[in-house]
């Protein structure tokens, strides 16, 4: 990133010192907390991590409360294309007027302002650009799933994660399941061999209409942006924007990228606005001939599940985002029920983000897996759109970029 004016350079020098202090204070807290946590907290009155929120819509405001509740963060800036959304967030969190950024350039301005970390909760189409802007500006980055909507975007995220590590910054992709100890234990057991070599399995994401019927007009860019969840390009379609939860768990368990996929999709039962599909069906081939059948829907009522079930010769791993996680077979694992993974997972990730910043842990283990699972959704989407088999290599070589029509939007 090009350096800005002298005053900003000066402030950055100051920030580096403060980050060093945060790391040192955090490391001390880890050691001292065992003895007297209250005194440690008191000694760190000035050590809250200063963060800015990019994307002040529904999930942005929801997760902002979780960051606040953690106690180790302080919001100092907010950015959203829409002024009314920034105002709502800014008023709630006491953000000064000059730290509220709007328009398409708002996110970059926020990244370049005086803060420690950025939290990206904007439409997925913008995640790669904003995450990279954060890293280039020297900020720790917390980014919501999906991390991108296309192949170039995924590659940008992968690069941003590596660059963050090189710059000693924390980069965390917020997948709730990967933070859950029961999911982790179950997946670890499969990776260690408890159910044997995987043969095949299934992943499903069944839910009702998530977005309702927002105003959506392809001739009105701002309307599309407000209704990004029902826009194929801005959201990545339901297989990337929502169904990634199931495909992320499946690719985590299989621990490979798929080799090829064939599938189909459509929009038959969805009555609301927008152009996203309402169902997908994809078959994936993974290395060692592991087959995964994937199905999803986003309409109707009667059956909701975010489930993954994979079979090996000695057992079955069975996971449900809103249910239980277990292994049945010769080496069983009782696992347990997910209580409120949607919130608990985010809370765990927020705590992990803080701990990583405080202790200087910058190996950023969520970056590469998030890229792989995101690309897995894109492979399935590409195969479904084309209605024929697509290989991973073809997808990567083509590097297709989705282009949103941003004409008419304010810079």
């Amino acid at each position, binding site marked *: 990133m090009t350096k800005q004016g002298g005053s900003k350079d000066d402030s950055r020098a100051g920030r580096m010192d403060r980050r060093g202090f945060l790391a040192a204070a955090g490391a001390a807290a*880890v050691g001292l907390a065992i003895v007297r946590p209250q005194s440690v907290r008191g000694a760190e009155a000035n050590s809250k991590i200063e963060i800015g929120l990019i994307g002040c819509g529904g999930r942005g405001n929801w997760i902002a409360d979780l960051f606040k509740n953690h106690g180790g963060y302080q919001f100092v800036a907010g950015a959203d294309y829409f002024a009314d959304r920034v105002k709502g967030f800014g008023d709630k969190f006491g953000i000064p007027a000059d730290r509220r950024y709007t328009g398409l350039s708002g996110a970059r301005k926020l990244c370049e302002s005086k803060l420690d970390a950025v939290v990206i909760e904007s439409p997925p189409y913008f995640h790669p650009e904003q995450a990279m802007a954060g890293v280039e500006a020297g900020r720790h980055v917390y980014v919501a799933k999906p991390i991108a909507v296309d192949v170039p975007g995924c590659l940008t995220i992968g690069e941003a994660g590596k660059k963050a590590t090189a710059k000693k910054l924390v980069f965390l992709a917020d997948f709730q399941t990967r933070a859950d100890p029961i999911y*982790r234990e179950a997946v670890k*057991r499969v990776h*260690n061999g408890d159910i044997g*070599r995987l043969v095949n399995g299934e992943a499903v994401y069944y839910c009702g209409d998530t977005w309702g019927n927002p105003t959506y007009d392809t001739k009105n860019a701002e309307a599309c942006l407000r209704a990004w969840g029902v826009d194929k390009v801005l959201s990545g379609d339901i297989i990337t924007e929502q169904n990634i939860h199931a495909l992320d768990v499946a690719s985590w368990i299989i621990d490979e990228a798929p080799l090829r996929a064939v599938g189909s999709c459509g929009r038959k039962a969805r009555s609301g606005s927008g152009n996203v599909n309402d169902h997908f069906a994809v078959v994936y081939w993974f290395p060692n001939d592991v087959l995964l059948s994937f199905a999803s829907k986003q309409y109707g009522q009667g059956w909701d599940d975010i489930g993954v079930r994979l079979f090996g010769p*000695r057992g079955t791993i069975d996971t449900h985002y809103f249910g239980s996680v277990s292994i049945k077979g*010769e080496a069983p694992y009782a696992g347990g029920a997910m209580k409120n993974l949607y919130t608990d997972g985010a809370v765990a990730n927020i705590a992990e983000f803080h701990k990583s910043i405080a202790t200087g842990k910058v*190996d950023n283990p969520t970056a590469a897996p998030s890229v792989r699972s995101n690309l897995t959704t894109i492979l399935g989407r590409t195969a479904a759109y084309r209605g024929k088999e697509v290989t991973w290599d073809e997808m990567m070589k083509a590097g297709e970029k989705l282009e949103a029509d941003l004409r008419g939007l304010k810079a």
Partner: protein
Amino acid sequence: MRPSNDVPRPVLPRCAPGRWAEVRRDKARRGTRRTSTRAAAWTSHPASAVLLVLVWTALHAADAPRPGDVLTNSIGMKLACVPAGEFAMGSPAGEKGREEEEALHRVKITRPFRLGAAEVTQAQWKVVSGGRRGKFEGENLPVEDISWADAVAFCEKLSKMEGRKYRLPTEAEWEYACRAGTAGRFAGDKLDDFAWYDANSDGRTHPVATKKPNAWGLYDMHGNVAEWCADYYAPAYPAASVTDPAGPPEGKARVVRGGSWASFERGCRSASRHSSSAAYQLKFIGVRVVMELAP
């Protein structure tokens, strides 16, 4: 985080002085001529006493249990010496197959002990506990299909038989012994040389001690059957250095360590952690015992 090539090297002292009685017992069993009676006779002359001290010291230095020294107990079980020392428990951030629960931390083991050079065999189990245990049948195959309580009971019965203390290893003792001074993924270069695991086991256990031992004379630490440990399982290691850790005071599952005939390579790593409900009897889990040394 520490880079992978900056892992603290373990401190590897010999077994502590003061273990003379243990060694003497070993030597006596092997038919050596040094006895306390003979030594007592030498002390009747002052010059002999000086000579005795010199000889005793020399013998002591030569015979104190060291890593690799093996004692054979009354049921034919071989037990290797594991010295006191320090090591880095867990795995570095870059280790292939690493799990978050393996945070590197310094551990001090203050007391030397003896650890079964091999997993308890079905023949040994039969002598101590009576009856055959194991889904796979064979006298020299490791016992499996035993619960944690079964393993503890075996130790208690063996302790009564021999009049000395046998018990399960703690998780820290187990990893310390498995590493035998190494800090990498395995205690040797090529896992196939050291372990029966998924890639070479043909889906079953194998006679114990038929692969290479580690540097301290311990066989099958990376495979054949996984092994019950004494500790309750906790996903998080202590944040700081610890001495003789024994796990949390309570928990839902017990620690199981070491790969098994069914494990993939990553599950056989020195740092790889497993756990199981204590009641489960699985054909993947057996036992290896600690024999405590006199203080």
